[in-house]
């Protein structure tokens, strides 16, 4: 979740930060080797430092992702037949899981330092015209209604437990929770659409201001370097043939 602050990463332009994320993801995929991931770990350390975020803080927020990361190596290590375990098969998925961890940590640095309105501004800059406006608007609405709908679902589950709903078959429990979540979605969207129209919902609003400063140029440089590094394995033969 976004945490207000004054770190270097907080002051960066959201577009530069998005570029770093994309560059890093590409580079991590192109260099999923122990050496490549070591370099990647260094970049992650820099990103977290710029966001004044301790690695364990970021990891605590992502702890629920851990089962997904462990699942890959675990599934692969088990063989259906003797000798039942094949640790060497787990190396590739383990590297992949570590790569994911790094990519997710870089993303965590973005998430912690970028308020939704800045992401909206970046989206509307990135996607021009009406689609960009619609995307920016919808992301803002998701930010608002995520907590509202989640509270609805929590209440439903509590009420169900109170009425011994846990004795119902699973698909029936799922259906009841879903109906509770969905039931008011149409009613809500009617009211919301009306409220937005009352406030002159338009295709051409004033967009939030974005400022690209010297620090952003450095971040963009890092992003470009990462993209360049990501492309080297693919481009190396081409370059070699040119030389």
């Amino acid at each position: 979740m976004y945490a207000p602050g004054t770190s270097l990463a907080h002051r960066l332009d959201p577009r530069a930060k998005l570029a770093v994320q994309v560059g890093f993801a590409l580079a991590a995929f192109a260099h999923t080797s122990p050496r490549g991931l070591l370099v990647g770990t260094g970049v992650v350390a820099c990103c977290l430092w710029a966001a004044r975020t301790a690695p364990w803080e970021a990891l605590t927020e992502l702890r629920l992702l851990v089962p997904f990361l462990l699942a890959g190596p675990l599934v692969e290590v088990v063989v259906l037949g003797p000798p039942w375990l094949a640790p060497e098969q787990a190396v590739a998925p383990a590297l992949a899981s570590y790569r994911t961890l790094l990519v997710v940590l870089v993303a965590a640095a973005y998430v912690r330092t970028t308020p939704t309105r800045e992401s909206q501004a970046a989206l509307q800059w990135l996607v021009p015209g009406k689609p960009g406006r619609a995307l920016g608007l919808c992301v803002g609405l998701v930010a608002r209604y995520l907590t509202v709908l989640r509270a609805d679902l929590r209440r439903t589950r509590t009420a169900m437990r109170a009425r011994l709903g846990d004795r119902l078959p699973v698909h029936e429990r799922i259906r009841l929770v879903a109906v509770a979540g969905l039931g008011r979605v149409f009613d809500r969207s009617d009211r919301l659409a009306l409220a937005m129209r009352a406030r002159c919902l338009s295709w051409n609003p004033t967009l939030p201001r974005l400022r690209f400063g010297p620090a952003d140029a450095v971040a963009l440089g890092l992003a470009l370097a990462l993209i360049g590094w990501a492309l080297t394995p693919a481009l190396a033969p081409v370059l070699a043939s040119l030389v």
Partner: protein
Amino acid sequence: MIETRGLVHRYGESRAVDDVSLTLDDGAFVVVAGPNGSGKTTLVRHFNGLLTPDEGAVLVDGDDVTDHPVTARSSVAMVFQDPRECFVAATVGADVTFGPANLGLSHETIAERRQTALRAVRMDGREDERIDELSGGEQARVAIAGALAMEPTHLVLDEPFAGLDWPAREAVLDHLRRLEEGGTGVVVVTHDLRDVATAADRVVVLSEGRVALDGPPDAVADRLAEFGVRPPER
């Protein structure tokens, strides 16, 4: 000034608003009262062109709202029932900014309007707070600020006191009174006159889509009950 001329709104066969002609002056505190289904919500949604008349016309400052929707919606701002369901952003500042940004105003003007609107409901300095962490009364005030940021000449509120405890009601009413003193026309839609009778200049009672009573609170008080409106306490 809001003017309806022979306004008719149909839902299928039934006439939710049936030949209503009203003139609402600037700077007045008007209560539109009536029981559920009397057509009061439908009527006020015509004031800024959110609905299209089946017959008749609605004019804001002399302009037909169907042809001038932007003018109508900036002049007649609206706060809907249960404002919790009508926020467009997760934080106070971002929500209040929504209206003025849609009008394409400059960043400076938008910031000024946000400041002024939030100050009017005593929520200034709380721009970065999350709306779902506010109390019901604070949410109601942010919703009013969101409407005020349009700098309207009239503010229409649909059942603004529903679900609020007594201190929150008093606070909201106090803000509405001050708005009226500042020259903004206030229109409150309600089925219960107890909260607003002391502030109102005029009460319009609807019954089955028609204007049944129209006058100062004292003049209509005795007949409110027969039209399903809870009268003020004496």
